[in-house]
């Protein structure tokens, strides 16, 4: 991860153009995107739609690998191939028209089949940050998948046929620092505060404040005071259950004082304290999934090839061992208070967060030195970001597509119990791929061959199911339906899939948000979708 380049103080043209997406993944996510090199294999309608949704938000560069020429059928559903280009190399035509979408993106093409490249330029695909393949026959998919698995380059395989869609992510290991959880609670540490915070919070005795002072105390201080009160009443026990929390709420409510007219009022900040009870008094624990990450082999056995993520994990691990808690996030929610008290409190949190991330950073520097790798591989800013989000760290370990096809017959029986399961579509699509391999044509592609193709495909899917030891059978109409498509892409289905696949690519490239794990099936007839881990 490179640190973002310095920006001029005025808003740049670029940041204006990307304003709406920067609000999702930030400048640092954008930098990763702008440095990304993407390879698309086969500029089908789906392939072009995926690339479109990556070029618009501004990836660095793309390369299209495609050995086909443009057909009339292509121009009917692919926005980026016009009728005049029929007969020309598809890679070239698609590259040229896709480049028009964004002047900041570089693009080139190779007018060769992926088979050819795989057998002639062994490491061609290694230079990419991600490879996306559409309409790959099995005989290309298997070696490509093995090669990229070894090279540790993420691969997204997609297929759009008729009303069916399939997306499969192959990534050996993917690490996420910013998972953007749905709802994030503030990190307050009121149970078990560190010494400086404790001293600060205990300076205030809520019961001794006059009305004016009361209205200026931050909600945190109020809540801490009443937690202490609760403990006094309960032999030092910490509030845990819902009724404990209710009791604290009640105590705060009842602390309301009267104004000079004798009207009892509970000030805004006290209301806020009541509101914070639920989320503010949970004891800080280290999430199980984080414990697992910190005990992972990758974290405990670093090598020169370890990624910055794991080196930072190792640094974090040392902090957790030393302090038995996670770094404080260091940000506070807004609260009604005078700015002096608020800023004082905020500074205590910030200071703690800073000293903890400095600790981790020092450990990281030491580790990097010990490993004998480049010093500037991890910046202090990155460590700060890492510490701030440490409770949401996420590691995904995927599986190799070649293994799914060749070794581990997937255990589908459980899914196939449900006659409407989208797993049946997976079976059909696998059958289709094998059909393509055997006959080099889509089932039903020739109008007079539909019936014989149905028969052939039925035999293939039947074989597949028995190889997987599944007793269920595929309903005839599913096979008929696929043969009816004759390999045709429906533009709107490809548009939907293109958006979804591009989005997964963005997640992988920015290392933000959790990606799909690992197979996505879409049925446009019923508008339903499902995700399976295969």
């Amino acid at each position, binding site marked *: 991860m490179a640190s*973002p380049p310095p*920006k001029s103080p005025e808003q740049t*043209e670029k*940041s204006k153009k990307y*304003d*709406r997406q920067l*609000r*999702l993944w*930030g*400048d640092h996510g954008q930098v990763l995107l702008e440095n990304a090199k993407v390879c698309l294999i086969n500029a089908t309608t789906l392939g072009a*739609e995926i690339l479109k*949704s990556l070029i*618009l*938000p501004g990836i660095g560069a793309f390369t299209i690998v495609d050995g086909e020429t443009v057909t009339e059928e292509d121009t*009917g*559903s*692919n*926005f980026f191939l016009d*009728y005049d280009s029929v007969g020309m190399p598809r890679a070239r035509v698609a590259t040229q028209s896709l480049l028009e*979408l964004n002047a900041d993106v570089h693009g080139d093409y190779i007018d060769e089949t992926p088979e050819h490249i795989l057998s002639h330029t062994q490491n061609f695909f290694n230079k990419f940050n991600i490879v996306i393949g559409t309409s790959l026959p099995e005989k290309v998919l298997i070696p490509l998948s093995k090669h990229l698995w070894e090279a540790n380059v993420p691969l997204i395989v997609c297929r759009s046929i*008729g*009303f069916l869609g399939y997306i499969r992510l192959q990534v050996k290991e993917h690490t996420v620092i910013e998972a*953007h959880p*749905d*709802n994030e609670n503030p990190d307050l540490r009121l149970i078990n505060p560190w010494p400086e915070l404790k001293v600060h919070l205990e300076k205030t005795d809520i019961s001794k404040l006059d*009305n004016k002072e009361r*209205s200026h105390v931050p909600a945190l201080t109020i809540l801490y005071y009443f937690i202490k009160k609760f403990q006094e009443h309960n032999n030092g026990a910490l509030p845990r259950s819902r009724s404990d929390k209710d009791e604290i*709420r009640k105590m705060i409510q009842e602390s309301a004082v009267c*104004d000079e007219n004798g009207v009892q*009022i509970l*000030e805004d900040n006290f209301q806020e304290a*009541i509101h914070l009870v639920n989320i503010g008094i949970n004891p800080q624990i280290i999430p199980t999934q984080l414990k697992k990450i910190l005990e992972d082999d990758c974290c405990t056995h670093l090598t020169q090839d370890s990624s910055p993520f794991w080196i930072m994990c190792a640094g974090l691990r040392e902090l957790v061992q030393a302090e038995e808690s996670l770094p404080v996030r260091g*940000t506070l929610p*807004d609260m*009604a*208070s*005078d700015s002096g008290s608020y800023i004082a409190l*905020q500074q205590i949190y910030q200071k703690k967060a800073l000293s903890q991330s400095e600790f981790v950073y020092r450990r990281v520097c030491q580790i990097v030195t010990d490993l004998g790798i480049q010093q500037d591989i991890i910046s202090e800013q*990155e460590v*700060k*970001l890492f510490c*701030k989000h440490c409770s949401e760290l996420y590691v995904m370990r995927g599986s190799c597509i070649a293994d799914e096809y060749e070794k581990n017959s997937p255990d589908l029986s459980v899914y196939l119990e449900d006659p409407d399961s989208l797993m049946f579509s997976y079976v059909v699509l696998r059958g289709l791929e094998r059909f393509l391999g055997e006959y080099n044509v889509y089932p039903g592609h020739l109008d007079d061959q539909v019936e014989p193709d149905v028969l052939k495909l039925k035999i293939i899917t039947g074989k597949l199911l028995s190889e997987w030891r599944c007793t269920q059978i595929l309903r005839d109409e599913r096979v008929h339906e696929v043969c009816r498509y*004759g390999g045709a892409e*429906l*533009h*709107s289905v*490809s*548009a*939907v899939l293109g*958006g*979804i696949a*591009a*989005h997964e690519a963005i997640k992988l490239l920015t290392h933000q948000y*959790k990606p*799909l794990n690992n197979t996505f099936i*879409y049925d446009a007839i019923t*508008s*339903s979708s*499902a*995700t399976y881990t295969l």
Partner: protein
Amino acid sequence: MQLDRTPCVLGEEARSLVKEAKILVVGAGGIGCEVLKNLALSGFQDIEIIDLDTIDVSNLNRQFLFRKEHVGKPKAVVARETILGYNPDIKVKAYHDSITSQEYGVNFFKQFSLVLNALDNRAARNHVNRMCLAADIPLIESGTAGYSGQVELIKKGVTQCYECQPKPTQKTYPGCTIRNTPSEPVHCIVWAKHLFNQLFGEEDPDQDVSPDSEDPEAKTEDGHSMTDTGNVKRISTRQWAQEIDYNPTQLFNKFFFEDIEYLLKMENLWKSRKPPVPIKWEEATTDGEKTEVKDDDNIKNTDMKVWSINKCAQVFAKTVDVLKKELSGRNFLVWDKDDQPGMDFVTACANIRSHIFSIQMQSKFSTKSIAGSIIPAIATANAIVAGLVVLHAFRALQEQYERCSAVYLRRKSKFSKFVLAADNELQKANPVCYVCSPKPFVNVFVNTNTMTVKEFENEILKKQLNMIAPDVVLDGKFVVVISSEEGETQANDNKTLVEMSVVEGTVLKCDDFLQNYELQIAVNHYEAKEKDDPLFKVAVNPEDLKAKEDIKNGGANGKKEENHDEDSDDEPTIVENPPEDPQEGSSSKRRKLNPPEDSDDDLIVLDEIIE
């Protein structure tokens, strides 16, 4: 030679319907561009597109029919040209116009087989909803907000309409909160936008920025309000600013020192609040970096940094100067979040005011999110939703309405395996919907003693009930209260409702000719008591309002209890709405999700941008 682009995958019937269909696309923004492309590649031959907007730089990251050289040009026109460049064989007609304008009446809508909404605001959505109900044309409604989105069919007599479920009202803030007692950054930002309009924009008396001495809270025990001396100047702010030639120091001292001093005199306001601290120009500009809240985050961009007071003051002076020059020779400026001086001005003013009221200051980036109600928008979500729209269109054309249940796009979360989820069945119409039921009826609660007929027309009929040109008569008396005919009832404008005999229990018959929409309104007299009470209310059933208030008063501070003890997340949850309609416009009236088995709650990412 003409190529048949109608997909062979569609059945024979569908293919011929597609070829004959005439489609109206309302909006050529993020979803609109994608929808147009999808239509052109699905064999549709006859498309009309309408959009009022022109192209902005910030559209280019997703509205792919536009290029840099198109910035400033009408979206509908450029979209048409680009699509025809790709496929010159189809018919595309473009209107650079507002869909709510009088030319597009029921007969205009009746010529289409299908209407596809790709809008970004609720008012236009409501309007198209009514037009399609009146013309009995199926409508496909769609929207996205960040990663989320949805698509649904609206068909008279088959599904619910866009207005069947009451939507959370767009958030407005009581005038006194803005003018006297702000407590959140957003209050200061709204104030700063009002200040912009007072000084440079179109004047709007509702956007006064000076202290409000009529604040009910400011009243002393014996009921006197503070209408004494002070600096209540009889001339308008604009006039005064022009007289002093927009001298930044004088302006600064008026808004941030004198007005605040005046506020401090309303002692009642500061009994349970921290009083504001006025600040003078001299003080602000010598204050150095002392007050800077250092947000030491990971991002270098200056837009992410919170400015110091000194910097705010400097920016204030600089932008006042720039805006003054821009204003010369024009009647007024229009504030736009993407216009730098205006945005800088608002950021500076909002922050100075926040500082005065001890409210957390915000970076320009965050201020922009709040001020512009910016919903993040990305190409991917729009592509997905637009694809779903056209797939719905195929089914709707074949009148397979039962297969058009709503589809939702959601950000995947750890509790969910869904990316796309469809409702199990169509949402049925609300039998008492004040738009699509056979006899539309609604209760309004207004202060009949003080509200004028003009206010009633603007605030209730137009803004709340979304009528365009209403005619209103007293039921059974043939007294015309409001006429859509220019000038015909002008004499009534400044009369109060009482003076027009519109009182508690009165029933008004409203008719919007353009929308072909008749509504009976029962008038209820209502006076706002508490400071935070709305000035007026609208509801089909008064009980609904009560229920809403109970919720509001029940939970602490009116917010929903957050009981996320561990796994309770995987229940369908109603997602909070963004403050205004999303950029691409999620039709997010009802985000309750009913996926087949498990599900998750997926908050709109808005929370994350306003950190």
